[in-house]
């Protein structure tokens, strides 16, 4: 497997994970009732990537909404990335938020405080 990709839906984000390029993108809305089920394949893909990580790994997260059930799963994804970072691949997480969305900025800062990986807060003009 060198790519894991799924399309977005009204309740779940699009995910594109290029294992050869070391780029992971999560975009859209993440408000499923069962988040564990939704995020499991991504967590599995990250496990596979861990042993063959590229020298640099770029993660772009651009969420419009996410529910608290997803917030735990997103933390799990970030914890995997923290492991990959410790393992020698330089991970950067680019956390995108819309200009007026202070809640989304704060959510990114919460993760930044918990996870030991370089975070960049990227403001997106509406």
């Amino acid at each position, binding site marked *: 497997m060198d790519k894991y990709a799924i399309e977005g839906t009204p309740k779940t984000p699009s995910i594109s994970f290029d294992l050869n390029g070391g780029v992971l993108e999560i975009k859209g809305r993440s408000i499923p*009732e069962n988040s564990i089920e939704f995020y499991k394949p991504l967590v599995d893909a990250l496990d596979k990537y861990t042993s063959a990580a590229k020298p640099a790994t770029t993660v772009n997260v651009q969420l419009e909404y996410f*529910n*608290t059930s997803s*917030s*735990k799963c997103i933390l799990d994804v970030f914890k995997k990335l923290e492991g990959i970072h410790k393992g020698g691949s330089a991970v950067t997480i680019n956390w995108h938020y819309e200009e007026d969305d202070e809640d989304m900025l704060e959510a990114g800062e919460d993760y930044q405080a918990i996870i030991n990986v370089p975070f960049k807060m990227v403001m997106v003009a509406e």
Partner: protein
Amino acid sequence: MGKPFMVDVFDIYDKMERNNILLSFKGEITSDLLTSILQIMENKMENMQEEPKMKKKVYNVLVECLQNLYHHLDETAEGENSEKVRSAIFMIGKLETKYSIFTGNYILNENIHGLKTRLDEVNSLSKEELKEYYKKVLNNGEMSLKGGGGLGMIDIARKTGEKLEYNFLDIDNKVSFFTLNIKVSQQQ
């Protein structure tokens, strides 16, 4: 002529009208229903030309309120009266610039204490304390299959900056009716 089970539709309508209810639902809460309610409210706010910031806040809080109902109905649904108990009520109203979200559902009496303790704890915290509490629960809390393991209420309190108003109404020796009123208004 007295018809004891004839519903007074006008009375319900009038009460809703006077409380500025935009949308209401009573019945079983399913995943598809949540999707529809969220879509309707999103369109409504779009049509009302609601500020993007407010729209996002209301949407976020709605998601948490509705998913709370969705996840916790299962817990009371077992045994007798399961049809009745699976049912819940949801209303959203807007007065001037303030939105109010009301939810109501049955709860097992044995679960009241735990829920009340959590709600009171959330209500006792300041904005800064809520942020710390959220991070603590996010990082250490047990994730349940049914959701964020208690993050929902913390998140609602954080995003609205308002206290969570609630009530438990005695029904019988097994269940009570739990109501929650969440206010969302533009802060600062």
